[in-house]
């Protein structure tokens, strides 16, 4: 069971959390300005890296807050967690593929 560092509550066990998939996919301000292809990708296409991955998590059975995490999908190590609306300190473009 993972130990996840909630930005509000500190380290708590995985059972209190749910993962919400890839982070930093903002809903377009005007969805109708997006063509069908791009909208389909916005809805359904997600990264699946081996290595660092920015993810959304919610501390569902804790403070109830959504936040973001950088997790290594290979080792399950959490590099950092940060509040929604913030940016990670690691550069994901340099993360190993």
């Amino acid at each position, binding site marked *: 069971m993972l130990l996840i560092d909630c930005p509000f*509550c500190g380290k708590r066990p995985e059972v209190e959390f749910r993962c919400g998939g890839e982070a930093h996919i903002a809903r377009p301000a005007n969805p109708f300005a997006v063509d069908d292809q791009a909208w389909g990708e916005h809805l359904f296409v997600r990264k699946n890296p081996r290595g660092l991955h920015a993810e959304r998590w919610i501390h569902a059975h*804790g403070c109830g*807050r959504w936040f973001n995490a950088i997790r290594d999908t290979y080792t399950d190590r959490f590099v950092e967690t940060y509040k929604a609306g913030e940016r990670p300190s690691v550069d994901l473009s340099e993360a190993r593929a």
Partner: protein
Amino acid sequence: MLEARNLARRVAPLVAEAPVVLERASVHTLPAHARFSLRARDVSGVETLDHPIGRTWLSEKRFAARLGPDEWLLGAPESDGDLLQQGIERALSSRFFSLVDISHRNVAIEISGPAAAEALNAGCPLDLSEAAFPNGSATRTLLGKAEIVLARPSAAPVYRVECWRSFATYAHGFLIEAASSASFR
């Protein structure tokens, strides 16, 4: 006019449950109480609310447990519910907040005794040691398959478990099972 016989009487969950007193941990259901869910973004300067997440402001009769950055569980004796509500409305009068009565949503169970923390740990995955969960702690967490708010209102080994009413039978049964297992070494 309403006939007196039509005046509804109150039936709380677990009312029929007698206290279970074991050697090292005991389980009691607590009487009905006033409870509110307070949500607010800015509580600066409000002494009863402006404290860290996971901590509780406590007076003899009332408490305010901060469950998240903008969420508090407020409690008072049933007769003080209106006063508590008015107090919050006064304290936050110029700010945006939401105050919702959840007195009937929540049920409180108390577990106490030297093995109380151990019994809770049968279903609660948190570190309940003195250092990690001291007097005045309160948080939402899990007890087995039920979500609970776990609070430690005093330095004594006494914990309050609050859950939604339909989970009360499960949580109560779980605590009794856990208390009897924990008391065996």
